């Protein structure tokens, strides 16, 4: 076995040193009645070349942007990742290390986390960021729990246009914690209903969670929401599934959000069938001690040289056990590193230009699709790189027909909203050329005829 170095002679000598006769003797404390006593019903070991062939065979059964023009978004986004990103994270000093428990030999990981925390703060307009969460949805759920702790209240308002998988994740996390979750409807333009929000907000409300942009791609106006929410002493939590948007739209912090969470997959990670990505979580300084997750802080060594350590760990499970702010241990370290490298490469101007391209392409597609007979754009509020399309025919059949033309046309909303049988969500990124968009529009024209 290529990953196990022991020769028969090694085994013999080691058993002798231990003072037992056989490998079986090492397991004597396992009672006989729980021993397996048969071989696993699993395949025989395969050579490396065979393994690669088998995985390639499976990979060929998946549709990707290599063969399809894809307009899929809805929580995972197809962006270009510069070659330097994958090369750098392939440095095995990064990817074969674990959580930096021994700071003297983990400064690479620690400094990268410190830079990640800084970039997330700058991006979201917040004061502190943790070292990462599992994904945007679980970060959103952790934000709900933190808001409950911070306000000692038990009612949380969730915008109905929040990503449905984020909402479902929040529901799961809150399932047995006696938290009341209440939906806030949206208006015809796709934005949250502020009148209804005012009715629902009260002194028992811990937080409002709102998608920014929301699941329909619509850019909410956070400032008036923050004002209303703060009037009753609750927190505003913004949840961003497509963080490239933050290169073009005002930061949640600037608009009064108290917690900014989201998904960082767009920052250099492949879509990889939905994971791994990285959840980001940022808030204000005064809440740092009730934050979930790891934090990296600056310090000095005994000779006064500057360095970094994991810090404020008295919030965490390995110290506080059942009183910890979260049960999270392993997070998404390497994905946070990817985001750090990606954002360093794009920098101040790159992320803005990228956001501008996404916006321009999506606007072009939106106008063109909206002009096709049988198709309308139902939500009129500004969107970023996603928008909802309404079709006066059978959406399922339409998407199937696009598939035959090697187009993945969008996410049918009926997947999450059974009543929205006529609508689908289209995403356009910098990876979609004008020719791709024109091909989609042409195919839709065929569908409307």
């Amino acid at each position, binding site marked *: 076995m290529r990953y196990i170095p022991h020769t028969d002679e090694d085994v013999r000598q080691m058993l002798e040193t231990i003072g037992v006769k056989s490998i079986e003797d090492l397991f004597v404390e*396992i009672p006989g009645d729980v021993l397996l006593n048969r071989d696993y019903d699993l395949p025989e070991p395969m050579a490396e070349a065979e393994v690669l062939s*088998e995985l390639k065979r499976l990979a060929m059964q998946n549709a990707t942007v*290599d063969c399809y023009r894809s307009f899929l978004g809805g929580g995972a986004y197809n962006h270009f990742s510069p070659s330097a990103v994958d090369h750098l994270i392939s440095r095995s*000093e990064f*990817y074969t290390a674990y959580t930096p428990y021994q700071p003297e030999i983990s400064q690479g990981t620690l400094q990268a986390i410190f830079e990640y*925390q800084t970039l997330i703060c700058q991006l979201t307009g917040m*004061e502190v960021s943790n070292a990462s969460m599992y994904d945007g949805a*679980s970060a959103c759920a952790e934000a709900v729990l933190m808001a409950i702790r911070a306000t000692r209240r038990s009612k949380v308002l969730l915008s109905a246009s929040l990503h449905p998988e984020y909402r479902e*994740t929040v529901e799961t996390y809150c399932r047995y914690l006696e938290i009341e979750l209440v939906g806030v409807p949206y208006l015809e333009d796709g934005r949250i209903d502020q009148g209804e929000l005012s009715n629902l907000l009260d002194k028992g409300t811990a937080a409002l969670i709102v998608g920014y942009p929301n699941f329909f791609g619509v850019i909410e106006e956070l400032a008036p929401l923050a004002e209303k929410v703060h009037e009753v002493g609750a927190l505003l939590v913004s949840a961003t599934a497509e963080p490239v948007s933050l290169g073009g739209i005002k930061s949640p912090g600037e608009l009064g959000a108290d917690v900014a969470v989201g998904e960082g997959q767009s920052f250099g990670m492949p879509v990889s069938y939905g994971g791994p990505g990285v959840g980001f979580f940022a808030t204000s300084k005064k809440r740092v001690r009730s934050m979930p997750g790891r934090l990296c802080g600056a310090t000095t060594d005994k000779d006064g040289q500057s360095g970094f350590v994991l810090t404020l760990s008295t919030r965490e499970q390995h110290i506080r056990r059942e009183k910890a702010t979260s049960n999270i*241990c392993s997070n998404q370290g390497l994905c946070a590193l990817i985001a750090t490298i990606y954002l360093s490469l794009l920098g101040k101007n790159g992320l803005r230009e990228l956001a501008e391209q996404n916006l321009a392409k999506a606007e072009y597609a939106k106008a063109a699709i909206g002009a096709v007979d049988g198709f309308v754009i139902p939500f009129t509020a500004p969107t970023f790189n996603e928008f909802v399309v309404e079709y006066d025919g059978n959406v399922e059949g339409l998407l199937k027909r696009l598939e035959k033309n090697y187009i993945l046309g969008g996410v049918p909303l009926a997947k999450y909203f059974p009543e929205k049988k006529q609508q689908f969500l289209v995403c356009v990124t910098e990876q979609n050329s004008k020719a791709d968009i024109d091909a989609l529009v042409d195919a839709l024209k065929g569908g409307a005829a």
Partner: protein
Amino acid sequence: MSQIGTQGLILKEKLIFEHSDPGRKGYSLPALDVPPASLPEELARDEIKGFPEVSEVDVVRHFTRLSTWNYGVDSGFYPLGSCTMKYNPKINEVTSRLPGMAGCHPHTPENLSQGALGLMYDLQEALAEVSGFDAVTLQPAAGAHGEFAGMLMIRAWHEAQGNKRKKVLIPDTAHGTNPATAALCGYDVVPIDSGDSGVLTAETVARHMDDDVAALMITNPNTLGIYEAEISKICEIVHDGGGLVYCDGANLNAVMGIARPGDAGVDVMHFNLHKTFATPHGGGGPGAGPVGIVDKLIPFLPKPLVVKEGDLYSLDYDRPESIGRLRSFYGNFGVLLRAWTYILSMGGSGLKKVSEMAVLNANYIRARLDTTYDLPHKNRSLHEVVFSDKNLGGGCRTLDLAKRLIDYGYHPPTVYFPLVVQGAIMIEPTETESREVIDEFCDAMLAIAEEAEKTPELLLEAPRVSALGRLDETSAARKPVLRYQEEE
């Protein structure tokens, strides 16, 4: 040659922000081929204050330098107990990057993602066979996330029967994630004393068992590296009392092909694919924490679940009793893919060999060190061995030993855990280390014990050869600096 650590050329490196120079860029975008568009002024952002402006070369050199300050499994021996720091095969990195896998969007229609779904289905089945459970969910992103899924299913099962049980029993040797998870599920945690032997007895469990106990959370083999020999009897007692048994599967690497937790009567267990199934730890994730369960819990599995009908794989969302979803999409697919690659490489027989050699290595370390280092628990060790710092001379403590090991060129073991051992030194070698490596490590441990007696300053002032010396954690926590701020 026991001291393989030495000083080399270490390059200092500023923060990426300190490299910034207005006008530099490290990216390229195709020319915009559609008309530009803009947002209403009240929505549009000004510049992202503080973001760096650097070239690709700046970035590559920056992160390459940072990487050299790290220690990984590829650098050397990394016996971090409870974390199973085994070698991460390179083929796994290749398969997880295949364009057909990495480029498959999670909203791809099921008929066009059969490769991804089939892989997940086969992995579910393989993990069930490895552990002796009836079904497996792949959704959780890490071990603690798996614990959360498992404990939610336990609670859902109780509630479905109208039970309002409030307590969860957890031995004092457990990982901190266990009590934190139980609390997250709305349970009260009742810590139980594992006793002097380090093995939980059926009698102790019976004493704590009552009508209000929903579950026992047990780690097996436990965090002392000892098999909980009374596990079958313990499961029986908990079941007879109307409770369920959760097993923390962090230490599965000790028993593959030998004994399956499901066969011992456990109801729920999470796997750590980043431990047992060789996916990289990534400097703190991403991992994956699938959960195996017995059949009575199947209705409560997170949704969606990958199912197979005929030759077709699909995602089953129609699960009315499900605890719901714990994250977006289906799991850390890229990690699942690496674990599946590993299982194909190892085969069933290889997995058994993994556990045999992991246990052999740990016992060999124990045999070489237990006359010098204090071994508080005498039961046969499996995959890891836990010493205390009682015998360490010269006023040196576990932390000093750990830091001195760095000078010798090793990553230190897990220290000060489990909490029941004074100055715990928890060593888990894994199966991928050769006898030579382990001998050199043991020689180092013995040499350090001698240094502690004769020249304790070598330990107390360690590490000396790393880029930095011991860091001041107290002031880091007292006055937290958690981000870079440009000087005004």
